[in-house]
């Protein structure tokens, strides 16, 4: 998304987007198999450090981006804490049953959500969609018709948000909608979707009018390859993971190795 914010480009901005995506997805899947809260806490801290140092955004904005994730942390953790099963009861009130196990599991889930969020931010704050899709075409052989369609879609996001505002204003001017949530959602969706369908059709025709075709031999305005930043990327994440694991196992904060 285009935040009109000035940011500094760091080495993370100059890594290969496909590689970065792959590494982060791999870590995402890896985190699913971490059941030791100590390791997870360390790993989250490592990501937090990278987030603060190398996304290149001013502190004020980093905090702003980060705020909603705190809510996710609380909401993810809470239902497991309140309703999860466990043996060592801490608190019981009606249906609410907080146990040591469910509390730890809940906190673990919270940190997991946090690390997913950080992995996402590390990627989206340091990658231009255009570079990502050029890289996906060049390194991962994504078909151009998909890549450019995605780029056209991304380009329309600010326009759609504007239109969303317009529809909201228009409804206000008409006196609002007074028959229920679903009716209201339809009132928003129909103008936005029909406008989008027409626009998509026109863009597709315009692209083909400019001789776009998957069968042509095409050249690329941006040639995206690999460099020493990519080695750095791999090394940094191996180090973060290894340190998190080693410290979590040998110097635990909490004497629990598996929250399941």
């Amino acid at each position, binding site marked *: 998304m285009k935040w009109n914010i000035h940011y500094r480009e760091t080495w993370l901005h100059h890594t290969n987007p496909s590689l970065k995506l792959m590494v982060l997805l791999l870590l995402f899947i890896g985190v699913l198999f971490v059941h030791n809260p100590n390791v997870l806490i360390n790993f989250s801290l490592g990501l937090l450090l990278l987030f603060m140092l190398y996304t290149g955004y001013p502190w004020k904005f980093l905090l702003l981006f980060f705020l909603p994730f705190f809510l996710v942390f609380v909401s993810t953790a809470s239902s497991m804490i309140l309703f999860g099963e466990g043996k060592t009861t801490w608190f019981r009130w009606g249906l609410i049953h907080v146990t040591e196990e469910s509390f730890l599991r809940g906190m673990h889930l919270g940190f997991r959500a946090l690390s997913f969020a950080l992995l996402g931010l590390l990627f989206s704050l340091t990658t231009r969609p*255009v570079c990502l899709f050029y890289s996906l075409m060049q390194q991962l052989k994504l078909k151009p018709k998909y890549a*450019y369609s995605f780029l056209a879609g991304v380009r329309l996001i600010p326009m759609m948000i504007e*239109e969303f505002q317009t529809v909201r204003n*228009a409804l206000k001017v008409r006196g609002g*909608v007074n028959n229920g949530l679903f009716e209201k959602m339809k009132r928003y969706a129909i103008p936005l979707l029909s406008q989008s369908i027409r626009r998509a059709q026109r863009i597709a025709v315009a692209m*083909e009018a*400019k001789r776009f075709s998957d069968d*042509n031999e*095409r050249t690329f305005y941006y040639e995206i390859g690999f460099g020493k930043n990519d080695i750095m990327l791999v090394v940094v994440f191996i180090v973060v993971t290894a340190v998190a694991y080693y410290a979590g196992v040998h110097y635990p904060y909490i004497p629990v190795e598996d929250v399941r």
Partner: protein
Amino acid sequence: MKPIASVERLRLKFPGKDTLLFKDLSITFYEGEKVLLLGPSGCGKSTLLQVLSGLIPHSIDVPMKAERVQLPDHWGYVFQDPDSQFCMPFVDEEIAFALENIGVPREQMKERIENLLEAVGLFVDPHTDIHTLSGGMKQRLALASVLALEPDVLFLDEPTAMIDEEGTKEIWQTVKQIARDKTVIIVEHKIDHVLDFVDRIILLNDQGKIIADGQAQTVFSHYKDVIASQGIWYPGVWDEYMAKRQYRRSVVQQEEKMIHLRQFRGYRLRDVKIRVEEATVRAGEWIAITGKNGAGKSTLLHALMKLIRTDGTYELYGEDSKRVKQLHRLLAFVFQNPEFQFVANSVREEIAYSLRLEKRKEAEIAETVERLLRRFHLWEQQNQHPYQLSMGQKRRLSVAASIVSGQRIFLLDEPTFGQDAKNTFALLELLESYREQGATILMVTHDENIVKHFATRRWVIEDGRLVKDEPISQHSPQAAVPSV
């Protein structure tokens, strides 16, 4: 002369329509010609361009057949809507997209892009966000990326329909510079700047049949009445209209204060986006709000409707606007894109909508709706879906549906934008009839003719500020200037 594009006995039908759009249409274009296709909206001019370029049926699936079709080898196509012909976010990337498609080596791209931007007179940093360009600049970018394909034939499909007067002029200037040695086939409704460029005019009727085809000046002067009846903006159309109307403005100078503003400000987030030191609007006034793109004209309307945060004094009928609970019952607001404000599934229900919200009696609703359907010439369409109407009908419907509760203050955001001459005059006359009955109109417009012939006052907005508030002299009917 060598033929460069042609069709013979073309038949074409849009899915779901009862009749053929073209029945056995034959036409040939020759190398180097500059041709203008004229005809009423919906007669198939754009469709014909799409057939001649091969976009139908290659990219658009429309049933057609022809005995023979000759497509040009190298062609480029500029479309009407500046916001839906790009797929990339930045100027250089968009032109590069076209270069990539035809396999231009990467090393040559930078230079080619710079040359193309220069050719169309777009002197911006190549890496500029397309979103920040004006409509006229976007269309010149579209021309640049089409020129990247090195076309012999240019198809221009109403390239200025959604562009203001200034942008329109720039676009045609550019076309004239770059297309001297090319074949150019144009569909256009605003022909002021095109007439001196084309050498051949083809006139179609609403049945998709060619009624005239020949040397530009001859066709234009012989068929002026037909062209006028088709709603085309040709030079002198305003003068002829004003003469025909035997215009006399009934002076409705009323004392009733409708709006009073003092130290009025409108905000977006924390920034003041529009401010008015002091202004009073009385019944029967028609205020044209003018100013450059992005000066804050629409923002002023939004502030008056309180769609954004405001402060300062804002009185409606002498009462503090803060005490007015339902502003939309006093102010009618018409947006630029009518579709966004449609809420019902039929024209009739669309007009009835606000009345139903107000829980008016069924008999009263039926009576009011019927009256408006007739007054706004929508009677025949009353059971259609609002989205299925023509551009002019949509616009009229959006006005009818907005003013149905009997509001006497109309806020209109460029209501005639992109409309043909016929629909523009029809809408202006409707608004004028309400004004004569004491309604007040505040209207954002770029059209100096509307300011001159319809407005009673002009507000000029500059950098988010009302800088000029002047009456338009109540001149007598203008002597019709002899037309071209």
